[in-house]
């Protein structure tokens, strides 16, 4: 922990492979994943894996390729080359099966404002193909956890932002996905709500759900078990927050991020 940066072992520069000692099964296994649009390579042969139950940070500047990579991992975009196994399913050959096994929450929360809390849950439950009994059971568990049982008949647009955010998170977990993708879930929310939300992420991961999260708040990147920073379509560095900082000889992830992306941003 206190080793000087130059003596520390470097984090592997291009891949984030799990230490062999950890036998947890892989929730995401991406190999050489590539996406080109015309002659532009948005994602360039990225290789990384995420273990079951990990909180994995997916960082990079705007335009670095994070969203394109995430869209391939959730089965919305076909890779040009390479492969990815997500929740045990090949995203290239069985995108539909991947989508049933993952949850996704975007920065805009994707709830229906003019429906009540309960109606949103029923709607998304039906879309996921859950039975009425199952929807009732799951909504009880999830709403109790975020303290919204009393407010189930409220219109979503009447809820404070922080509650809407936690509700969107719960809806993404309705069908008990194995892997949860969070795309900038904390943008614009206040600092206390942001931290309460991260405690929800921890609880979820501790219960066995794998979480892959993108964020522009680099203090939040410190809360991840491992992370990658993408630059111009490639993974520039990968590892635990401590490994990444030691590899780059910096003391905060903020500095790590500036160090890696400043040259790219200048062009």
């Amino acid at each position, binding site marked *: 922990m206190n080793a000087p940066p130059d003596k520390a072992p470097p984090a592997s520069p291009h891949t984030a492979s799990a230490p062999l000692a950890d036998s947890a099964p892989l929730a995401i296994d991406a190999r050489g994943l590539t996406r080109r649009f015309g002659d532009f390579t948005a994602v360039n042969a990225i290789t990384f894996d995420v273990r079951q139950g990990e909180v994995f940070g997916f960082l990079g500047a705007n335009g670095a390729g994070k969203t394109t990579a995430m869209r391939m991992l959730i089965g919305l975009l076909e890779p040009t080359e390479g492969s990815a196994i997500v929740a045990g399913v090949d995203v290239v050959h069985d995108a539909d099966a991947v989508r049933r096994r993952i949850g996704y929450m975007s920065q805009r929360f994707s709830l229906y404002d003019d429906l009540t809390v309960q109606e949103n849950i029923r709607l998304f439950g039906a879309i996921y193909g859950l039975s009425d009994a199952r929807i009732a059971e799951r909504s009880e568990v999830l709403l109790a956890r975020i303290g919204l049982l009393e407010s189930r008949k409220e219109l979503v647009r009447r809820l404070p932002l922080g509650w809407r955010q936690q509700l969107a998170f719960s809806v993404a977990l309705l069908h008990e996905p194995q892997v949860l993708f969070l795309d900038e879930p904390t943008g614009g929310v206040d600092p206390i709500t942001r931290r309460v939300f991260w405690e929800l992420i921890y609880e979820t991961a501790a219960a066995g759900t794998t979480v892959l999260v993108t964020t522009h708040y680099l203090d939040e990147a410190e809360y991840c078990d491992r992370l990658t920073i993408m630059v111009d379509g490639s993974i520039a560095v990968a590892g635990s927050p401590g490994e990444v900082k030691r590899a780059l000889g910096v003391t905060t992830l903020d500095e790590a991020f500036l160090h890696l992306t400043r040259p790219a*941003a200048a062009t």
Partner: protein
Amino acid sequence: MSDDPRPSAFSASTPAGAAGRDDAIVLHELSHAFGDVHALRDVSLRVHAGELFGVIGPDGAGKTTLFRIVTSLVVPSQGSAQVLGLDPVQDFRALRRRLGYMPGRFALYTDLSVLENLTFYATVFGTTIEQGMRIIEPIWRQLAPFSDRRAGALSGGMKQKLALCCALVHAPDLLVLDEPTTGVDAVSRVEFWELLGRLRDGGLTILVSTPYMDEAGRCDRVALMQEGRVLAIETPAAMAASYPLPLFAVRGHDRLAMLAALRASPHAESVWPFGEVLHYTDTRREVQPGALAREIGELLTTRGVRDVEVQPIAANVEDVFMRMAQTPHVAPGQERAA
């Protein structure tokens, strides 16, 4: 305050709500409601000429409504405003000629080229790009290579710079920017704030909002807002110094165990994750910080946490905001974590 001995641009001789000589913006007891939603509640503040003034708060704090009143786009339900010595309701035409406004969703024409957008804004304000170049030159230099590209095809950072050029081309006396850095990555945010700093150094008055607490230090003074109210107005340094209780940065090998142990302490006011450390606030202001730090360290070590380090630290603006903010966003029955 009539007994305040400090010389001040807005001394006792300036009545509340009236603009002193050096005030670019004076807002007095402004309130605004949209139906039954109270967007602003009793907001008073002054922005001095030549100041880079930040309004900091999360979504729903009222920042955009406040800026729309300042820029004459919304008539407040109650209270008064003076901007550049003008009344935004009565004198809106005169005011709009002297304002540069960059709304949160950049008002660019995506089907027009970069150059066409800039030409359009210059023409609307009765000027030319050549006349505006004195102000926009440092920003335009980065955009010029893309002058023929459609605005819709620019990267986020470049769109932001073009929107800034369009807001500045008529050499306004006041620049108003609503969340220019939201959703923008850390590197581009730093560059944008450097630009704003240079514009302020050139004499421009700037009113800017952001949800990012770490940007407060870039401003001369900041107002913290939450749910329509102003919580505090200060320089960033004075705001940090106003933190009333002993605060510590705590590190160790197990963040969750430390959170649980510190929250269980009867002397804890708050414990929050803060990047790689925890920020712990103790209620005992009468005890030496060094003694408190040793005590906290021992507490954690006896709970089995290894590599414990406890350091007394100065608060930052985020600490101050979190202490001042009420917590209505935590649902009833959800204080489980506390």
